[in-house]
């Protein structure tokens, strides 16, 4: 990892093909767009939560979980909501680390949106949480697309953790990734 102040990987050629994305906080009025991916089993199969079964279910999730969350953002392309990304900070002594998760509406997969969203999220998080020293993310062993997204966004693979987490009633093997948080005044390499 290079030690530049933004900790965002350098501008390779392939970045010119990455779409322009913006991140913004959610609003209850986003429930319709939210349902697009939240009700899709192809997206939720890699999430802890199952698909939303109704707009009421989605609205409740937005109100109870998304809006009060420490860091949860809508991913927008050309102003349209296409997915979400969130960072969960550790509790108490573990505040120095956070885990990132994201999900994208199926029709927008394969266009570099998730990679761009991750880069933007990392950039914001390093600025907003100066005490952050570790950003981690997991991808299921059976989800190579997500592994590629994390790698393209500059995350480094640390290992295969067996039966690490329960998803939909079954324990899963995951690949653990991390991005050491390089801040302007840290003595990190």
């Amino acid at each position, binding site marked *: 990892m290079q030690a530049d102040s933004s900790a965002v990987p350098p501008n390779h050629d392939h970045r010119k093909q990455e779409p322009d994305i913006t991140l913004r906080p959610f609003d209850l009025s986003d429930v319709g767009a939210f349902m697009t991916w939240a009700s899709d089993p192809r997206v939720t199969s890699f999430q*802890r939560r199952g698909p939303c079964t109704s707009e009421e279910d989605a609205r409740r999730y937005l109100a109870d979980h998304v809006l009060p969350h420490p860091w949860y953002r809508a991913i927008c392309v050309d102003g349209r909501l296409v997915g979400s990304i969130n960072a969960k900070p550790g509790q108490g*002594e*573990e505040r*120095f*680390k956070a885990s990132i998760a994201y999900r994208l509406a199926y029709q927008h997969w394969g266009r570099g949106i998730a990679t761009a969203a991750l880069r933007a999220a990392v950039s914001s998080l390093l600025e907003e949480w100066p005490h952050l*020293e*570790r950003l*981690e993310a997991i991808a299921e062993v059976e989800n190579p697309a997500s592994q590629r997204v994390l790698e393209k966004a500059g995350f480094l693979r*640390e*290992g*295969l*953790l*067996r*039966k*690490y*987490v*329960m*998803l939909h009633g079954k*324990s899963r093997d995951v690949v*653990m990734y*991390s991005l*050491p*948080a390089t801040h302007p005044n840290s003595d990190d390499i």
Partner: protein
Amino acid sequence: MAEEREITLRRFDLSDLDDYMVWASDHRVSAFCRWDTYTDKEDLRRYMRETVLPHPWFRAICLGGRPIGAVSVNLGAGCDRCKGELGYVLAAAHWGRGYGTAAAKMAVRSVFQEVEGLERVEALVDVDNKGSQRVLEKAGFVREGVLRKSMVLKGRTRDMVVFSFISADALVD
């Protein structure tokens, strides 16, 4: 192994306080641990009462029936209910005799039998703690990788080696 015949695991009792103080007050022992060396027996008594005794899985490592260390498994909940984290500590006088390995093996065997739904026991060890890494390897844990800057120990963020023992592994042992 011979060491397993000498070592037994049992629940702690407050009457173990003096034995517990032997390793809890030793800087060599606490060096790689998340807790700080104890200087006051009353603080340790409180820790035993509030954390050790009510803990879901916390055992004394005994030699000839007397505690020479401790082993515990912190169990997860919800999405993490398939896993537990092993921690162990041994009085310095008993290092290098295979007791840590024996205790880790016995703890893993017991906890998989006792806790329904548990599939993974993991352990996180400081990259510089080679002794503890050897103990886990000899106990049959698999080294999965290094989690960078993943734990704060004694005020410094440390790289930790992650080891795991899966319930399916236990059947082979």
